[in-house]
């Protein structure tokens, strides 16, 4: 949506500016400002009311925490020197799980595209694995792999891999058959069909799989940390919940949401760099 607005404006700026057009541009600007303003207003209001209600004891800050207590908790964690470590552990696990999920998912999708036989054989298994709640596998991973980062990463993989495979494979299969025929008329091999058409044409699909995977990976990591970890934001949340320190839980959730948003933005940035060169 934002991309559309951007390119729209660029086109407009090339035209001569008439009075009506100025009016139109002003309206667009005003609309944009209103949206942003309302967004910030909601945030400020929510935080403000939260703080107010907690201070006035309308709600119990022991249960709901409050923005000021959250800030204090974060700064305490920082001063104790553990904040960055927890963030680092969780982000690292997420990024590794995310990368592995994408790379392995794409590789497996390539294999399934390559061999119709393997694809047909694998189909029922994929369907079952896709509908299975992967979290149920958590205890198995812990017993097999042992409590630690590796188990958490495997958990993340379990959550994101199947979705990636199906998403990317569908992307591969949706490519115009005539594009493949074109490569074949030049005498192209199956490998060339893959490298010249399927992969580059699927880049948008792969990127959109990445976007889904960002969310999936966070789910996998946090669930993994709930189950086994000794460090990380998921660990802080579970620990905070167990000892009834809601300040700690709220702080961790806040940091988590910022980290997840940043990672999503990173993928959007990547998408812009890779695709918009020929799209706009």
């Amino acid at each position: 949506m934002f991309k559309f607005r951007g390119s729209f404006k660029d086109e407009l700026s090339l035209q001569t500016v008439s009075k009506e057009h100025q009016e139109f541009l002003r309206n667009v600007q005003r609309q944009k400002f209103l949206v942003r303003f309302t967004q910030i207003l909601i945030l400020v209001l929510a935080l403000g009311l939260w703080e107010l209600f907690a201070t006035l004891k309308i709600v119990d800050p022991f249960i709901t925490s409050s923005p000021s207590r959250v800030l204090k908790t974060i700064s305490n964690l920082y001063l104790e020197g553990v904040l960055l470590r927890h963030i680092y552990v969780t982000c690292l696990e997420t990024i590794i799980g995310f990368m592995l999920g994408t790379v392995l998912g794409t590789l497996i999708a390539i294999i399934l595209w390559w061999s119709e036989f393997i694809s047909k054989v694998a189909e029922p298994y994929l369907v079952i694995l896709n509908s299975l709640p992967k979290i149920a596998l958590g205890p198995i991973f812990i017993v097999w792999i042992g409590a630690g980062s590796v188990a958490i990463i495997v958990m993340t993989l379990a959550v994101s891999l199947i979705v990636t495979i199906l998403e990317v494979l569908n992307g591969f299969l949706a490519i115009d058959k005539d594009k493949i025929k074109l490569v074949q008329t030049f005498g192209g091999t199956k490998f060339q069909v893959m490298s010249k058409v399927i992969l580059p044409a699927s880049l948008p699909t792969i990127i959109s799989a990445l976007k889904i995977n960002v969310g999936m990976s966070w789910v996998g990591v946090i669930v993994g940390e709930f189950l086994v970890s000794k460090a990380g934001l998921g660990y802080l949340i579970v620990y905070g919940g167990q000892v009834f320190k809601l300040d700690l839980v709220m702080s961790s959730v806040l940091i988590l949401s910022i980290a997840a948003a940043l990672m999503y933005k990173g993928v959007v940035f990547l998408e812009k760099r890779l695709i918009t060169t020929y799209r706009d």
Partner: protein
Amino acid sequence: MIDRKLKDNINYHTAKSVKECGNTKKVAMLLFLFTSPCLLKYTVTGKLKGERTLKTVVELQNIGMKYQSLNGEIPAVENINLKIYEGEFVSIVGPSGCGKTTILSLISGLLAPTTGKVLIDGEEVTGPSKKVGYMLQKDHLFDWRTIRQNVLLGLEIQKAVTSSAKAYADHLLKTYGLIDFANKYPNQLSGGMRQRAALIRTLVTNPQILLLDEAFSALDYQTRLAVNDDIYSIIKKEHKTAIMVTHDIAESISMSDRVIVLTSRPGTIKSVHEINFELEDRTPLKTRKVPKFQQIFECIWKELDVHV
């Protein structure tokens, strides 16, 4: 949209022929038949205008093709015997599903015939050959490649990107007015320019024979007429042999030296029309203006026997 145009054509031509031959009166009908160009049976020999003996480039020997499916066999074409000579422009028309595209796929080596043989320069076709270039219905320029990169696709696949090949690609881009767009992406070009870029992509690999599979049907009518002229002149200038499959009778007559009419499935050769209007500097548009053009059109139209 094309269908509607076709229907308009149908109405126009049926109305005309009914008026001409007086459908109800048998005598008039017979008279019409005798004057009809359909009766001027074209004999196909190895000789075209100027009585030069031409080299056979493509030969289909008793070709038959059946597709297998769970519901049974589908015979696509049967008993096709055809010789195509060097520098010739041959069109294949026929009702939908009569195996026109199958014939091109067989010549290009993408498919192997169930019976018979396809020979190119006397050698049996066993797979895609560098002698054959294929143009599909849509241009299929790759969005993610610039025009120059698109044009070099075939060479890349054939692992033949040399500096001289690149220079040849640039020469073609320059000759056909696309050099200024060489570094642009396909979505910045018009439909006609894209089609030209697609033709250059085929020409760069220097095929002897060009196969055009409904290569213009994705274009709107005005553009299509212009692109017909455009592509025709390029093909003639580069001295290529061309085999075109089309639904458009007018297009086939306007561009070809010979029009081959197929029967409905399984496709067999119903008739062959030699188009020789003895025009100076023939172009598809000029050909459309020759009076005899209409006669041949109606004749092929009747042979196709389309019922709507």
